[in-house]
Each structure stands twice: as C-alpha cells, then as structure tokens.
C-alpha cells in the first residue's frame, strides 16, 4: 500500500499521481491526434490525406495499440480503456481495411478469382447443366406427346405465342425491331429480371438445393416447350437463332448460379472433414465470387438480348454471335488464371 495516501499532508511532498495517470498524460495527445485523423477518414476519405499524414497514420495506430495493451495491465480507469478500445477498433478497420488499388482489385477478380471459382464449381455446374438439359428434353417430349402441356408450362403465353398461333404470328415474335432505340428499356428490364432470378436460384441452395433444382428444371422445361412450339410450325431454326444470340450467355450464367446453389447445398449437407460452420463459410466465399461473375454475364446477356437481337435479324449472324460468346466464356473459364506448374497452391 502506498503510504502517501493515508499520512496527513503536513510535509511538502511531490504531487501525488497514479502510474496510470502519468501513463495517460504522456500518451493522450497521440490518441486525440489519431481520433482526429479517423474523423477525417470517415468524412473525406483517405484521398484527402497529405503524404506526411499518411505516413504518420500507422505510427499513431501502433502507438494506440500499444497503449491499449499496456493500459489493460496497469490501469483500472474504465473510461480510458473503453476509449482506447473504441479508438483501436475504429483505426483497425481502416488500417487493415480494403485498401487495394482499383487496378489490383480488377486484376485479382477478373484474372484470378472469378475463373478459378467457376473451375472449382465444375462438378456442380455440370449437374446444373444436366438438370437444365433434362428439363428441356422433358418439356419437348411432354408437349409432343400432349400439346395441352404447353399451356400448363407457359400459362401466360396464350396470346402471340400460344398453341393456336399461326406460323406468321410466331415469326413476328422472333423478328427484329431495328427502329427501336439502341438502349432499349426492354434490355434493362430483362437484365434486372434475370439477375433477380439468378440470385434466387443461388440463395435457394441454402434450402438443401431443392428449390434450385426445381427452378433449373422448370427453366429447362419452358425452354423445351417453346422450342417444340416453334419447331412444329417449321420455325425451329429461326427460333434457335433468336435464342442463341443471348441464350448461350444467359443460360450459361443461370447454370453457374444453379451450380453455386448446389455447391452450398452440398457443403451444408456433407461438410466433409471441415466443421459445418467452416464448410459453409468456404462455400459462401467461393460461390459469392462466382455469383458476382454471374451478374456480369447477365448484364452482357441483357445487352445482347435488348440491343443485339433487335438490330440483327439474320439467323446465321445471330447463331454466329451466340457461338462466339459461348466460345469466349468457355475459353475464359478453362484457361484464364491457371496456376503455372510449380507456383504452389
């Protein structure tokens, strides 16, 4: 016990102060400086910092960190420790926050993360593709067997693309519309709608993948049914061309989204050696990367659909564009960002 505290103050003595108070007095100007810098970051961003200030920020941060770890072992001043904790936490998220340059962000996403994520999802994407194809074949066969199925699968298509539409009416729906404005609202509608559908397809994977499976199968069935409708009027080739120009990109994106959903379902049900929590986290990060790619693909598809398909009416050109897009995506996913031998994991 410090004897100074309970002897009467008769003799002149040095000013009584606790070690923690001296500690605080020596360092608090640094803390306040860091706090002011953080306020500045929050209001105006790091761009407003001069070079000196930028170089000083990590120093202030480290000094606050060391103050905190020291304060926790020598001081019982609650207010000071609380302040230091809050200050360090605030500083931490900025010092170790996302401060990669935009160029690096774009490089690591487009060249490394995105194609690698899609490659790692290969098995599930194949399963999703098989589901889509099975749905398309089923849709075709069921309509061919009993044409009333068409109205069951596509209840909203009684008008221009119904069972009793003539070949001429059908041809009109797949024609172009060159007078339309290039940036047609239709393209935006299709793009936003498809992104919504893709997000749902992905997220439903968390319900053990069943809704993802059902959605993919249903997409396949409607596809098969429509192909059947046009084919039986002798417009199969034109319809395929109309579909291919954007469809290769759009359906590819939907298949990847479904693959992401299946991946989540698989890691949820069979986490393997990892704990379920870790497995879900890995699956979420991997599929999240692939899904950002899906949104990009669907934007491309929306442009092709809303602009390209309205301007280009020749079926061969349409098929050509669709095939080129498919080849581009295929090449991108199979070859970009491969690790060179010996580069390590």
């Amino acid at each position: 016990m410090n004897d100074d505290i309970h002897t009467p103050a008769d003799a002149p003595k040095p000013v009584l102060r606790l070690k923690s108070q001296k500690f605080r007095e020596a360092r608090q100007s640094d803390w306040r400086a860091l706090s002011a810098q953080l306020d500045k970051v929050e209001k105006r961003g790091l761009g407003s910092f001069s070079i000196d200030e930028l170089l000083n920020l990590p120093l202030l941060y480290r000094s606050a960190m060391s103050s905190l770890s020291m304060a926790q072992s020598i001081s019982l001043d609650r207010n000071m420790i609380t302040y230091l904790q809050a200050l360090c936490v605030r500083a931490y998220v900025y010092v170790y926050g996302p401060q990669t340059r935009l160029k690096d962000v774009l490089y690591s996403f487009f060249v490394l993360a995105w194609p690698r994520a899609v490659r790692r999802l290969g098995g599930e994407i194949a399963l999703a593709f098989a589901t889509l194809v099975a749905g398309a074949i089923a849709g075709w066969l069921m309509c061919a067997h009993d044409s009333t199925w068409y109205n069951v699968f596509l209840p909203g298509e009684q008008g221009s693309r119904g069972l009793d539409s003539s070949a001429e009416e059908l041809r009109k729906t797949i024609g172009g519309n060159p007078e339309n404005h290039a940036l047609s609202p239709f393209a935006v509608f299709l793009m936003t709608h498809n992104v919504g559908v893709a997000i749902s397809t992905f997220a439903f994977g968390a319900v053990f993948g069943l809704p993802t499976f059902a959605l993919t199968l249903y997409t396949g069935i409607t596809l098969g049914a429509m192909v059947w409708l046009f084919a039986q009027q002798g417009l199969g080739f034109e319809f395929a061309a109309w579909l291919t120009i954007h469809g290769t990109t759009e359906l590819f994106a939907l298949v990847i989204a479904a693959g992401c959903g299946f991946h989540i379902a698989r890691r949820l049900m069979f986490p393997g050696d990892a704990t379920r929590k870790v497995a879900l986290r890995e699956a979420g990060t991997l599929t999240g990367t692939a899904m950002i790619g899906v949104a990009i693909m669907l934007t491309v598809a929306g442009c092709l659909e809303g602009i390209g398909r309205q301007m280009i009416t020749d079926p061969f050109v349409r098929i050509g564009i669709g095939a080129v897009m498919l080849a581009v995506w295929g090449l991108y996913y199979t070859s970009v960002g491969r690790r060179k031998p010996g580069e390590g994991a």
Partner: protein
Amino acid sequence: MAKPGKRDLASDAPYGEIGRSATEVLTPEGVVLPFINATFGERVGALLLDWLIMILAPVIVLIIWLILPLEHVFDNGKNKALGSFVLIVAMFFLFFLRSGYFILFEMGARAATPGKRVMKLRVISHDGGRLTPAAVFTRNALREVELYLPVTLIFAWSANHSVGSWLAFLWALALLLLPLFNKQHARLGDFLAGTRVVHMPKASLSYDLADLEGDRNLGLSFTPDQLAYGEMELTVLEQVLRERKPAVMKAVAARIKARINWVDPKNDPPGDETFLRAYYGALRAHLEAKMLLGRRRKDKHDAPV
C-alpha cells in the same frame, strides 16, 4: 446479476458494457481487440430503417416526378428517346433498391447501410480480416431465402389459408430468429459469408476521476482494510461518479460508509460526491498497485489482495 464465480474481470468486459458479448480479434500486433456483437434488437432496428428507406425512396421520387411540370414534354409521343431513357433510369433505380442497396452500401468504406450507420453497426469479417466483395454479395443474396421468399409465400398462400402458408411462416420465423440462438447474433447469410455485424460505439475520453492530491489536502484517507472492494465495484463506482445523480450518489455513499465503518470527521464532513471521489481514488490506487504485482481482485467476493 451473474453469480460471483462466473463473473470475469471487469476489465475483460468489452467497453465496460457488462453483459454484452464480443467477437475477439487478434490483430497482427498481437493485441486482442474486442468487437462488440450487435444485439438482435439493433439488427432488427437497422433492417426496419433500411426497409423504410427502400419503401419511401421510390414514393418520394414519384411525388417529385408528379409535381414537376413535365406533362407536355411527353405529349403525343414527343421525345421518345428521353422517355425511354427516363424509363431505364427508373428501372435501374428500382433494381438497385431491390437487389443492390445492401450490397453496394456494405461494399463501401463504412461497410454499413444507412440503417446500420444510424444504429452504429458495421459488417466485419469474422476473423477481422478483409471484408471481400464476394462475402458481402453472399450475405445479402441470402436475404432472398431468409426474408423475401418466405414473405412472398406467406402473402401468396394466406389468401387460401393453406398448410403451405403456415410452413412458409414457420420457415421465415426460424430463419428470422436464428440470430437469437448464437452468441454473435449471426444470421444464415453471415454464416455463409463468414461475416459478423458489430456495434462500433464512438467513445470519448473523459477526465480522470482520481485526484489523489486534492483528496490528501482534504484529509480524506482510508486504511487498507477499508478498501474492501474489487474491480467490479470500482467500475460501478466510476459509472456512478460520471453520471453524477445526487440520489444515487447518496445511496452508494451510505452503503460504502456502512460497510467500511466510516466515521465522518467532526468538523466539515465531506459531501457524498467528495467522499465517493476520494474513496474511488484510494481504491483505484490500491488495486492498481497490486495489479502491477500481478494480483487482481475481481470483486468484493474475491479474496483481498
């Protein structure tokens, strides 16, 4: 109050807010930083605020659109290009509100939507690492399963009171209440993305309460036997002295005086606040001195140091 045996050192409670749990992150400097987990109430509050914004924003834009004198601009199919441009902007706006609102705001530097900012919340990576765009995308895409789909299904099926609507209701309820059943109040999307939502209070550095020099001049001193409290009580005392409510200070002073058999000096007895501050200073000096030797006293039930 928790049982004495279970209570931790008061200095381990994050930000002195005893009863709130924290996600502890080990920084590269080797310091353990406690991030306070957001409570369920804070998270629901933030969500409701965001929903309010998402609903009100298009309504306000629509009202402004109707107020502006624009009728004649689009008469008789004039300005078709401008019309379709406006339509495109409107569709992007609605799409942003429906699908991009959470994602874009959380990808920003503050890692929080406006609703979260109001509640002083922030999204962090569960291990304190970098919050990646992929993680933000995943945690918000999962809202489809957790929120939008069940709500849609409830509306769709409530019309015919089917079993389906009850199932959808239970599903929505289970996912909505998931944050209540884990310590960090994480929802399904947080688990999948490896993110957590934390509370970031902005604490201010107040004055130091201990004034040993002043107390010495007043002649208030205590024997080691009278300093019979631990860190827990010191924290509470600090809180009382910072809030400065006369009634509370009076009650606390009476309790302490009774416990330590305090006898007021005959002439000029100290006021409640003066007494409490002197006692705080002496207790803190005592406990900190022992702390430097590695001996700590959690609370009054602990053995005296």
